[in-house]
């Protein structure tokens, strides 16, 4: 005998409701199939020992079982339909079609389900893919087949000839005569460890003990399943009733509790909680572990675990946004770049996206030393050309001042006109005769932001 629980899973709580359904099923039988997000089927053979008495017939005990499932579901806050039948697929159709508890008597499947609309027939139970299902659905509609019984009563040979083996399977489904084994689900393995603290913790050291304990257990679970993780989620509940959650994404799957501990501690140090901690939860996203075959003659790269710890240490020092590899952006906007996560893998670039802009044979071999940030400058112009400049660095540690003896430009660029941060500027390459009595001229690049009319020194040519 089989029971089916069909729950009304709300999209908001889809995951929790789904888990609740499975948990509920496991309380009645170890043989559970999760047919879909909202449907579970369980093999209840043997449950009569729990739910029947001598005076009860089979129908009675199955009814009692159904009622009990419904009662416990209601206790868990789930709205479910329950059905019991001799065939798992019949149970599924009954639960998804009838409200409350339904018991389908063996042998009376067609009389109880026969009037159901053919649209309720679940093609996936017969292993029919969507495309084929659509095709068969169209054919049945053209044939005027409206209910299960309409379909069930078609001659088997006729159906087989026209709809093939898929049609035969589907017809058996409609007749309530399908035969199959349940696809069992394993009881869930926890990759989440949690601890409620008796006394709030406000310091890092005691917290590290707690974290270590939880991480050891978590890694042991991963190890037992031959899995690793590439994402750790730490959830801290604080004394002020707030929650803090942080996620650590790992470049490669790992399961070393010591590394995890250090990463978590660095992260907490960089952004400490505002109140004492009352509860700690650590969850890991299970993934397959990394398999690495190193070559005999290939130089060893730093171990990812060590590299990750080093990067975390750097991030603690300079801020997370300032660690990584700079990547130039494909834009005319000067010096536009972004920081991307540092990745050890060496990728061979296949050229820029716009090869026509690349200069394969650069004539200009001068080096350019860029000032970051650029120096603010005051520039005098004559007929639009710069003739004198005075500039200093942001921290006022360096300065330049003097007459511009030679200027080349303007080199005009503008862009991002569709965005709020539209930009436009005129650049000049200028040679400055140092008025501080310097020996040589300085060759530098200055520019004027056209929107603000402000001048800057962008850098100097070596």
């Amino acid at each position: 005998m089989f029971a089916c629980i069909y729950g009304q899973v709300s999209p908001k709580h889809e995951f929790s409701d789904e888990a609740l359904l499975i948990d509920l099923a496991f309380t009645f039988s170890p043989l559970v199939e999760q047919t879909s997000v909202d449907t579970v089927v369980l093999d209840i053979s043997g449950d009569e020992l729990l739910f029947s008495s001598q005076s009860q017939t089979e129908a009675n005990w199955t009814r009692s079982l159904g009622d009990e499932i419904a009662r416990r579901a209601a206790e868990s806050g789930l709205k479910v339909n329950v059905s019991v039948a001799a065939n798992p697929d019949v149970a599924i159709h009954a639960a998804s079609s009838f409200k409350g508890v339904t018991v389908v008597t063996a042998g009376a499947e067609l009389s109880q389900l026969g009037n159901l609309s053919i649209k309720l027939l679940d093609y996936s139970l017969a292993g029919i893919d969507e495309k084929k299902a659509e095709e068969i659905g169209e054919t049945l509609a053209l044939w005027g087949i409206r209910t299960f019984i309409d379909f069930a009563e078609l001659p088997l040979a006729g159906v087989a000839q026209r709809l093939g083996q898929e049609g035969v399977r589907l017809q058996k489904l409609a007749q309530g005569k399908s035969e199959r084994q349940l696809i069992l689900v394993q009881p869930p393995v926890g990759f989440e460890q949690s601890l409620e603290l008796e006394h709030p913790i406000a310091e890092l050291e005691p917290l590290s003990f707690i974290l270590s304990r939880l991480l050891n257990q978590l890694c042991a679970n991963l190890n037992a399943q031959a899995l690793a993780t590439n994402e750790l989620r730490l959830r801290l509940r604080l004394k002020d009733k707030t929650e803090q959650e942080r996620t650590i994404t790992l470049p490669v799957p790992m399961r070393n509790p010591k590394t995890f501990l250090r990463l978590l501690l660095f992260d907490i140090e960089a952004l400490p909680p505002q109140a004492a901690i009352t509860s700690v939860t650590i969850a890991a996203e299970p993934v397959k572990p990394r398999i690495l075959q190193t070559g005999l003659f290939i130089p060893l790269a730093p171990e990812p675990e060590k590299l990750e710890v080093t990067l975390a240490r750097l991030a603690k020092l300079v801020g997370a946004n300032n660690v990584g590899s700079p990547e130039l952006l494909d834009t005319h906007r000067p010096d536009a770049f972004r920081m991307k996560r540092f990745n050890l893998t060496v990728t061979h670039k296949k050229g820029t996206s716009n090869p026509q802009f690349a200069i394969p044979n650069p004539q200009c071999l001068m080096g350019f030393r860029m000032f970051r940030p650029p120096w603010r400058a005051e520039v005098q112009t004559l007929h639009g050309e710069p003739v004198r400049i005075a500039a200093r660095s942001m921290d006022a540690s360096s300065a330049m001042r003097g007459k511009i003896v030679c200027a080349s430009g303007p080199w005009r660029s503008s862009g991002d006109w569709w965005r709020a941060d539209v930009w436009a500027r005129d650049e000049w390459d200028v040679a400055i005769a140092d008025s501080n009595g310097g020996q040589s001229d300085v060759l530098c690049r200055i520019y004027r932001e056209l929107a603000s009319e402000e001048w800057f020194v962008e850098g100097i040519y070596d």
Partner: protein
Amino acid sequence: MTDYIELHARSAFSFLEGASTPEELIAACSELKMPAMALLDRDGVYGAARFHLAAKKIRIKAHIGAEVSVQRPKTEDHRPREVVSIPLLVRSRSGYQNLCRLITLMKMRVPKHAKPGECSVTPDELAAHAEGLVCLTGGSKGLLAKDFHQRGHRVAQRNAEWLINIFGKGNVYAELQRHFNRDEEARNHAVIEIAHRLKLPLLATNGVCYATRRQRQVADVFTCIRNHVRLETAGRLLSMNSERFVKSPKEMTQLFADLPEAIANTTELSSRLEFTLQDLGYEFPKYPVPSGETMTSFLRRRTYEGARLRYDGRNGSPTFERAQKQIEHELALIEKLKLEGYFLIVWDIVQFCKNNGILVQGRGSAANSAVCYSLGITAVDPVGMELLFERFLSEERGEWPDIDLDLPSGDQRERAIQYVYERYGKLGAAMTANVITYRGRSAAREVGKVLGFDDETLGRLSSLVHTWEWKDPKDTTERQFKDAGLDLRDRRIKKFFQLYLAVQDLPRHLGQHSGGMVICQGQLDSVVPLEPAAMPGRVVVQWDKEDCADLGIIKVDLLGLGMMAVLEETIQIIRDNYGEEVDLAHLPPDDPSVYAALQQADTIGMFQIESRAQMSCLPRLRPQKFYDIVVQVAIIRPGPIVGNMVHPYLNRRLGREPVKYSHPSLEPVLKRTLGVPLFQEQLLKMAMICAGFSGGEAEELRRAFGFKRSEARMKEVEVKLRQGMTRNGIGAKAQDEIVQSITSFALYGFPESHAASFALIAYASAYLKCHYLAAFTAATLNNQPMGFYQPFTIIKDAQRHGLKVLPVDVTRSNWECTIESWGQGTGVRGQRSEVRDQTSTAYQEQSRRDEIFIDDSHDDVLRAPLGAKEFRSYRASHSFLNSDPVNIPPLCGCSANDTPRLALRLGLLCVKGLREEAGRAIVNARAERPFTSIDDLHYRVPELRKDELRKLAAVGALNLLGARASRPLVFINHNHVGHIGGRDARAPSNRRDALWQVERVSREAGPLYERLEENGGSPLMPMTLNERLNADLRGTGITIGRHPMAHQRESLDKMNVARAADLKNLRNGVSVKVAGWVIVRQRPGTAKGFVFLSLEDETGIANIIVRPQLFERYRLELVNYPFLLIEGALQHQDNVISVKARHVEPLNIKIESAGSHDFH
């Protein structure tokens, strides 16, 4: 005096590589006081005509050229040959011809819409066409720029030498551009070095891509569209700055202050470029005439031959003597303007059509010419109708005449076009182009995509672009955006809106004009570059119809007209089935049944007079003679409507107001139209009489107020007109009236000649519909889509007129709809005897079954479990269809020529999703012997796919398979076919039977299942009435059974809903409810926001008028629901019946909609 001329500008006709129209470039040029400019679009002279005409108006010299893609010469390093863009300027006419030929060579060997680089000319071809051209070394994408980057100075210099070898030393200029770019400046230095070494003159240009700095944004958007990227991801594909606009000579002089010779050389080169498009060198081909004849004498002879036949003085036509004066006048002018060749060539095309049985008729202003009439080009007699020749041709205008020929759309028209190609050579004739511009939804989508909007927002943005013709004045852009949930204050939305407006009307790609052909004496490819059109066998020029006309290239419009195809096919069907020959030129002129139908607005399917607006006018105008149809065709046009001419005319016609004239002198002109000007010719004559204008001046006046109207020009002409009228003593009030009628007419008015040509076709269609309904309906269905109504409505209309319509049946239907004898052995004339021969026992059986089919298949009904009530309903419907309780209009021609009982057999083309190849294969296989079963059909027609078989079964086309097999069939070796004599045991008896079998035949069942199957037969229940109706509408879009509304009649009667046919019996002003299927929704631009609906039920069509306020209230219901119930006041005036809606509600009828014809 300026010392700089821009010699390298690109317009939007470089398709996504330029952002301004040629006119905008010229306007910028004019503003900067530059005396000349050169347009060099990519691989074409698409914009040259407009550039030239815009420049000519303000006396700027328009230099012509193009950036031509050329394969670079072979290099030592054996790299693949790259394509570079070489700017070429035209120096002389031979240079222009060379450029056109060069581009034609390139274009004709590559597929349409090839990307830059995919098509190019070879170095040898360039060398062979270099004469008369000046070459520039190019900008950032030019030959030298690429060389510097990739191969270094040495190769660059060698390529510069290669150019000198081709074009000659004085014809190669080292081009320098300065867009404030470091790389570019580095290149410039190298170019200067090479130029000094090779002694090449330097030339400054700005490589213009847009007229003003601001248009850089449009250029960037186009770059994104071209590269299929968004602005955010385009990166350095976008331009670096906005410097490619038209710069003033002063700016350019400053920019090249260090190289004054580069600036000075621009004026020097400009003075060398003598060629303009004024000097196009186009010649219309000479018509080959027999020896001893000149074109003049030949034309004269042909004209008089025709005139003697046409002007025989019989049946009210003028005598030859009367027409001769006009013909002489026309011939003299034709000779003077040297247009004999043109007339003879058009005559030749018409002769070809006539000799090959292709229906042809000239339309438009050509119908004003007695010569055209005599040559058989047009069918309207301008002498008899006193039409004004000057509307067609005048000496003053200095323009080529325009002759449009209407041909049956489809293959016949294609034959005529191919004849012209054959006769004048592939390079001697071509279609004119149709420039497709950025407009409407597609523009909104493309701009939206570039800005990175998601699909949902894109959908909302593009839906903002109204397809409704009329716009509410309150419908501001802000409101539209707000209604769609978009905030115009948002930066991206605002930017979208600006860019959307900026790209409007910019060219997107080149299409092919529907019928305009240009022909040339000699090689057309030396006049304008030619390209292959998307349609095989077609060649198209790079200019559109207007450009060709403006440059004096003569064209002939070979237009496809669906109704011409219908007329032609109807005549053929009549010939084959009625054994009669109908000559359209000799139809009885005053057929009473035609006028009766017109007066009752019973005009569905008739040419030009079937629209809702026409129908509401017909009962008022009550046409009684041919000229009334001419008026009818012309009166429902924006001109008369906007000019408030319709009501005065109708009132005068109905005697409600007196006939009066703005001035007594206008009486002869306006008498025929009761003092109300309705035609353009009247406008011209009014100007001639009142203001003493000549014919040519009057035509000039019309054009001044026409499509390309300019305020200044209109003012100028109006002053002249008023002066003339004052001279003739016409008072101020009358002057105002006359000016008012002229201004409203010039833009939208119809020429009388054109209206008369259309009226002829309208009359012919009405005549054929009235007398040969079956043939006419079959031809109309075979030429869909066309006209105003869906096939569903056409069939229902024919059925209401008593036409028997038989279903699609693979045992009888051809691919096209045909007609068959039907009924009790009544005699059939002529070739109908063949049909009668087939009326064997089997035919009788089929006939009985067909009749039943009309009532949704007898078999199905009998096998279905009918209750007593359903049976009564079935009987009622049966009787309804055979004797319609609604009065069938007496004019119905079926009773005349369609007796004895010709029925329309729907063709296989009605089945949606059935390919023509498969349909024709069925007909061919059946011609060998009848099909005995579905297995037999499947076996013998392998072209039929399973889904097609299923479609045929679903619409009942397989129901009669095997029914006619009257003798044992030869055994066919096929796995599944059991063969017995007479009717095959497997012959389906209803659609479900057929569907059951169809699923089997297309699947290999194997021997085990086969026997089991046959004993059982089909276990499926026959379709119900509603299922059959749905299957019909889904499968064919039509039903020959009861109208969907008839199924609802019982419940509608309970709700006191009137039938469409009952409305005429109700009083004006009563409150009434009507219900039906919405077949037309209209919101015409001239109706001030009123919406007109046509609701069809089983008795006819009810017209509904919806006020703008009511439309706003019920917008959802009115637009989205196919079936509506409308309550309102009945308006019954002058036999025109409509309901002014007060309340609208949707009807919950679940039917697959055949769709409506919406929003004209």
